[in-house]
């Protein structure tokens, strides 16, 4: 499973990488929306884990671009400022799940697995067995 983590804060990148790699995921990390788009262009990912608040282009912009060009990639949005409005906006734009920061490893793992399982189920019937 290939996961792309997008966050401008190094400690978040580091944490995510640590948790997810321990779970056996293949983790790619980028610090900005633009770089994330570059990566998505050339590599295939099973899941996108992204921050909302980032300098230059933010998570909302990134999510719109992804949904426009690669609508099948499931997205988990994480935010350190989890207002109901933000959560509602993000889910409306097509995020599969939302996770507020800070999170414990088990919380992140739980969400990631939930999302992957959902997409797998969705994919398994029309395209046959995947993963």
């Amino acid at each position: 499973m290939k996961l792309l983590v997008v966050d401008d804060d190094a400690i978040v990148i580091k944490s995510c990488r640590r948790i997810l790699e321990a779970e056996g995921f293949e983790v790619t990390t980028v610090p900005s929306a633009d770089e994330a788009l570059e990566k998505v262009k050339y590599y295939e990912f099973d899941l996108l884990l992204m921050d909302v608040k980032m300098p230059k282009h933010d998570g909302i912009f990134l999510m719109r671009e992804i949904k426009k060009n690669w609508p099948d990639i499931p997205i988990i949005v994480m935010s350190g400022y989890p207002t109901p409005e933000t959560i509602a906006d993000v889910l409306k734009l097509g995020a599969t799940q939302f996770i507020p920061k800070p999170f414990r490893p088990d919380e992140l793992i739980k969400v990631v697995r939930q999302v992957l399982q959902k997409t797998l189920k969705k994919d398994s019937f029309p395209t046959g067995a995947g993963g």
Partner: protein
Amino acid sequence: MFYSTRSKLILSFLGISFLVCGVALLVGGQLLYKTVLNEAYTRISLDLNAAREIYLSRIKGIKIALNITSVGPIFKTALEKHDVQTLVNRLNVVAQQTELDFMGVVSKDGKTLCRIGPNSFPKGNTPENPIANLVIQKQVAVSGTVILSNAFLFAENPELAERARIKLLPTKMATPRPEIEELSGMALAAAVPIFDAGTFHGVLYGGVLLNRSQEIVDRVRDTVFQHEIYKGQSIGTATIFFKDIRISTNVLAPDGSRAIGTVGSEEVTKYVLTDGKKWTDRAFVVNDWYITAYEPIEDIFGQRVGMLYTGVLEAKYADVRWKALSLFILITVAGMVFAIGLGYIIANKMSRPVQQLIEASHQVSQGNLSPEIGPISKSEIGVLQKTFKEMLTSIQERDERLKKESEIKLLQSEKQASIGKLAGGVAHEINNPLTGIFTFTHMLLRRNDIPEEVRSDLETIAQETERVRKIVKGLLDFSRQTELDREPTDVNRLVRQTMTLVENQALIKGVNLTFESGDGLPLVTLDRNQMQSVLLNIIINALDATDPGGSITVSTNVGISTSHPGQNGVEILCTDTGCGISPENLNKLFDPFFTTKEVGQGTGLGLSVSYGIVERHGGTIWVQSKVGKGSTFKVWLPTEEKRTENEIISRG
């Protein structure tokens, strides 16, 4: 302008003065004049009596003079001796002294022996002497009014005959008559029989001719009317009529001469002369209206031969009336002028403070809360002025209080907003490193090869990080201005629901928790979840502050806002018997992060968040506290009446 107080006041004053003066005018003009007129009639009637007395006394005077003369020895001797010269001399003296016009002696056979005048010793037949003849016939003294023929008068004295001849002058109201001259004379005369030792010797007669005589009428005028002059004319007049002809009068003709020869009015003549009655009324005399009295004059034979008249000019009374009327009119006009003046002054005096109050109100409406209202009046207006002043003072006070309150509120809001922003920013920044701490602590804890000591330490780190997460979450909740999800709510039910959540805690702590629900509370549109957290916060705080054995009473009421005048609402009170809040802490109570609880027991955000929630509901939160006695928290929430009504209708 016409409806102003001043006009009304002046009009009412005018009305009163008009009424009073109008009545006075009516009473004065009519009643008074009538009384005066009646008085005048009575007076003229009395005057006529006096005139009669004068008339009769003159007759009496003549009679006495003749009597005295007849008994004198000189006279008797001369008569006995037929010494006519002596007689005439004697007669002349008496006649001169008593002002007789004619006097003479008649023998017992009716012949004139002698007389005064130019023809003292008549020869041959003499004209009939009516009064002497009556005495000869009756043998007693006679006196009174006598009509004398022209022939008699001529015989006595041609001058008398000339005096008696009166040319008739027509007047407006007189009976028209054929003759143009009156030749007979009317006289006051007396005649006494002369006896000597029982033998009748003759008659002594004498008298005054009334025709053109001024004596009696002027004496009446001068004694009775005291020669009162009105507009150059004597007010009182007296007249002796022969038949209806004025033969002796001081009534003046238009040319200023005495109106001798004028004829009395037909009406009066008929009433007095024909019917023999006394006349007292106004009458037209010569050419003026008089208030008059007439009575008939009878001669010695008992025939009505003339009239005696007294009269006063009606003009005088009319003038009195006119004078009275003018005086009353003058008083009326003066009263009106006075009323207008007084009304004006009083209205001014009354309306000046009112005007000033109006001006002051105008200024107040323009924002000037300390306008000039002038000196305080002593009347009811003064009460108004004082009340107005008090009102202004209380408005000012309220203004200041509201200003202060809103300043405090603004300050609180600003504080909240800025701290909210800060908290939001800080929370956001803290959440990233917290993620790191969480991650690596838990990753370490997953390992099985770490000693128990290290695991314990790591668990502490994990726990405390969890605490930090909670604090930051609280901060974020505080900074978040979440929209209210409002719906009409039964406040009593909400409170009851909230209280069930803390019932167990209270029970465990041994604090008596009671609820007194108010009756007739309207529904309040509110966010149930948020308001519940507010109530929960307040009750938990109370519970924390109250020692075992104490009590917490929550009650609800219909309440009117103190800071939003006239707005209805519902208040929720939470009173505890706890430790109370010190005055210095009372001011900081709603500040974010303010807490008196021990570290780890509270974030200090609860009341601050509650404040924000209540504020967003348009309500207020208020605390009263006494250290050692306890605190009362009051949450006031406005009811939106219209919405509530609609709610009821749609539900019904």
